[in-house]
């Protein structure tokens, strides 16, 4: 019995370790935190940003495993949705940037100066896709 519990604890710990380090590695590759510190000029606070990510991830773990119930106002969801959206948006931008799509695209169609217009196409596409999905798509 004890050996089973020890093995389970070990397995749980190992999978948590793998998932956690994978998450951090992913975040590092996409360069979201450096980008945010660069925009806000808060390089000195980088350590507390690390903690924000770690605490956020652990809160997510608690929320998904324990099903807590806070009984708060639904309007609290607006800032949560907004910040969550900004985060996913930066993730998507970081990913498409890491994939090196834009420089090649700009070269191919000789649009070096107006590449922002193309990025706006992607941005509006994302917003449209998201709103369309939640308002219409998932209910049909």
């Amino acid at each position, binding site marked *: 019995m004890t050996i089973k519990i020890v093995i389970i604890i070990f397995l749980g710990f190992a999978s948590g370790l793998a998932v956690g380090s994978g998450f951090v590695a992913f975040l590092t590759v996409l*360069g*979201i935190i450096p*980008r945010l510190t660069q*925009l806000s*000029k808060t390089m000195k606070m980088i350590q507390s940003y690390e903690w924000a990510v770690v605490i956020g991830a652990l809160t997510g773990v608690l*929320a*998904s495993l324990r*099903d807590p*119930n*806070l*009984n*708060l106002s*639904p309007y609290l*969801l*607006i*800032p*949560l*949705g*907004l*910040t*969550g*959206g*900004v*985060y*996913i*948006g*930066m993730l*998507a*931008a*970081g990913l498409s*940037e890491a994939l*090196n799509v*834009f*420089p*090649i695209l700009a*070269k191919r*169609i000789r*649009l*070096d100066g*107006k*590449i*922002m*217009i*193309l*990025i706006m*196409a*992607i*941005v509006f*596409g*994302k*917003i*449209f*896709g*998201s*709103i*369309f*999905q*939640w308002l219409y*798509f*998932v209910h049909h």
Partner: protein
Amino acid sequence: MEKTVYIRMRNRVQTRAKETIYLKDAAQIIADDSVLSKLQQIIIHKLTEKDGNIVVIDVMKVIQLISSRFRDVEVQTIGPAQTIIEIVSKEKGVSVPFFLLIWFLLFFGSALTLMNFHDDVSMKSVQEKIYTIITGKRETKPLLFQIPYSIGLGLGMILFFNHVFKKRINDEPSPLEVEMFNYQMDLDNYVIVNENKESMKRVHDD
């Protein structure tokens, strides 16, 4: 007495077709006044039809040209070992239908990718769960979360590319500009090795 001439090749020269490239176009020169103007007027390349649109001028060629003309000059080179001469044809306008097609392609493609992503990570059930955690009620349409989320999504992308706050926050280059620069450097490096006949040599040993 030997005079020293300092030459620094420019990284990139843009010119029109069938022009003559003088040394002063392709390089920065520091030299004694007595030779400077003659040096500047040395012709290092005459562009012809068959040059294509990229020519690489190696510093070795420049040194050879200078030393064949001036016996008592010592050439010191600094910086890049070659100049890329890029022949720009007259600006072609971007065709509007082509542009609109690409714009729509990107627009719809991103919309589709995002919906696939949401489906892939079960975004719907996660959002419903967040709604339940905060309010204690069940809701199959947590629009109060979803609409700000969708707007924030676009905001995050714009923030990442530093589009809106470009001048206001700081003037560091955005990741996109750095990425474009890196891509250009990669292309240049390729051209330097492949367009320059002297930079590769096969010695057959059979």
